């Protein structure tokens, strides 16, 4: 059921793991995964790691991940035929909007992972991808949207993808990436919403920004309350009510502790 088909390195420290089987899940949802060595409880890691669904077909599911610490390092050393433990899909995922209007998908670094499914769903979207090092996984996104020209990529240690993006131009923005980037994006978007801009011709009445957030997790199903984030409507569990939140809801101080 959870046999690895392939586990390829596509950039320094970045891997795509493909797993055989028919799996559920929408854009922005995630699975909890770890290597399965047949023992539980006192092997490392104890807890599974949350990974967004990157790609999905009738007979496979794929995860795009960066080697961050030991858990992901162990995953990166696995090879075809070995087993992983996989539970999911979990979380709310990106919103399915009937009328998204003009829409942008914004990804920073590994934040690209959940955007492939989002690009398939919102094929009319403009896509902005920022990398501090080598770019990766861009080609499949180009193929997912109506026109490859809609995909803008910046890879630079010193500049930000946000330089290319005018948030106020869009009705809807879906974003995933480092907390710092998300926060900057939220500030620009809020500024645009405040400004008279939206009365200008061609601009939408307001911009709605949805961000996919990260919090350390234990259960993944909403039981342990270790993944909560403070929002304007109280604590919300990243694994159930998240990981996607409307940007104006979240308390950024509580997010950036990840």
């Amino acid at each position, binding site marked *: 059921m959870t046999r690895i088909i392939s586990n390829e390195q596509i950039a320094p420290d970045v891997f795509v793991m493909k797993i055989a089987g028919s799996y559920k899940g929408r854009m922005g949802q995630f699975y909890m995964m770890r290597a399965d060595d047949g023992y539980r409880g006192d092997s490392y890691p104890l*807890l599974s790691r949350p990974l967004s669904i990157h790609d999905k077909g009738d007979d496979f599911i794929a995860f795009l991940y960066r080697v961050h610490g030991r858990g992901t390092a162990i995953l990166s050393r696995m090879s075809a035929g070995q087993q992983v433990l996989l539970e999911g899909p979990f979380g709310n995922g990106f919103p399915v909007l009937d009328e998204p209007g003009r829409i942008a998908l914004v990804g920073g670094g590994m934040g690209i992972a959940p955007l492939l499914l989002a690009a398939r769903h919102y094929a009319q979207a403009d896509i902005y991808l920022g990398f501090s090092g080598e770019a990766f996984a861009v080609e499949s996104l180009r193929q997912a949207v109506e026109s490859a020209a809609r995909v803008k990529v910046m890879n630079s240690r010193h500049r930000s993808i946000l330089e290319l993006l005018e948030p106020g131009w869009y009705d809807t923005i879906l974003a995933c990436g480092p907390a710092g980037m998300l926060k900057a994006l939220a500030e620009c978007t809020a500024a645009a919403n405040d400004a008279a801009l939206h009365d200008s011709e061609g601009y939408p009445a307001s911009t709605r920004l949805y961000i996919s957030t990260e919090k*350390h997790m*234990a259960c993944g*199903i909403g039981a342990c309350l270790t*993944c909560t984030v403070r929002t304007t409507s109280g604590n919300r569990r990243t694994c159930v009510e998240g990981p996607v939140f409307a940007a104006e809801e979240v308390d950024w101080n*509580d997010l950036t502790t990840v």
Partner: protein
Amino acid sequence: MTSLQCNIGGVTLRNPVIMASGTYGFGREYAAYVDAGILGGISCKGLTLHPRSGNPGCRIQETASGMMNSVGLENPGVAAFLEQELPYMTTLGTAVIANLGGSNAEEYIEGARLLSVHTRQQIEQGGRGIDMLELNISCPNVREGGIQFGIQTETARSIVRQVRSVTDLPLMVKLSPGAQDIVEMAVMCEEEGADAVSLVNTFSAMKIDIYRRRSAFDNGYAGLSGPAIKPIALRMVHQVARALSIPVIGMGGISSVEDIIEFIMAGADAVQVGTYNFVNLRAGTELVDGLQTWMQQQRIESLEEIRGIIG
């Protein structure tokens, strides 16, 4: 016929496998993975009289064969529990244990009183309330007033005594491994009329983020659980079980049927499973079925045959 039944303070449990407080929510989230009706019981997320939003910042870190949490008793409060969660829990077909925390004596007493009154009313109306109260005198993540009731026997005594006086629910007191003298603490609970004790809660522990030069948790210390602590928890359960005549519910790192058997041989009447639920969402099913199978394989008909056989 193998029987896994056990009796804690007048409540008959289907089997000795109870899901530990704080790791099983109010039973809803695991419904897709485990039929709660097969479980011995569920101890709900720790309640306090008033709602609490818990601790800010990072709430979890993995450690060597363990995890640290600093949830800080986030919960909707006793009233909301009774209204929104308990009705669901009583449909699950398993013993419902209300885990009650507090930051001062009044909170404990009023919380216990509300839970008891509600249950009495439900029963009078032919309904069901909670089956047992688990008094958590040991949450290491709540520090209001700087009091930690679970450390000194005499401080804890007054809480246990007062709670006992306001409830006729079966009363289980949950002990902290940080108690100065855990045997003395347990004996005190028996003296004060508790029907059972459960142990251990998490160990107060620390993790430092050396690059940010601060504790990994805003609160400073956090509670350690999981397989790492099992050998210490087992020793404590053994010590306490030998000193008490009321039932002892053992926990700390249980992750397999063999672990459960160890606790029972050490003298536990039942066990609780915490962290392992996160490791394996189907822990309940695996452990209950596995326990049944193990007993049959070993030709043990009742847990009484092995309970406390380690002298």
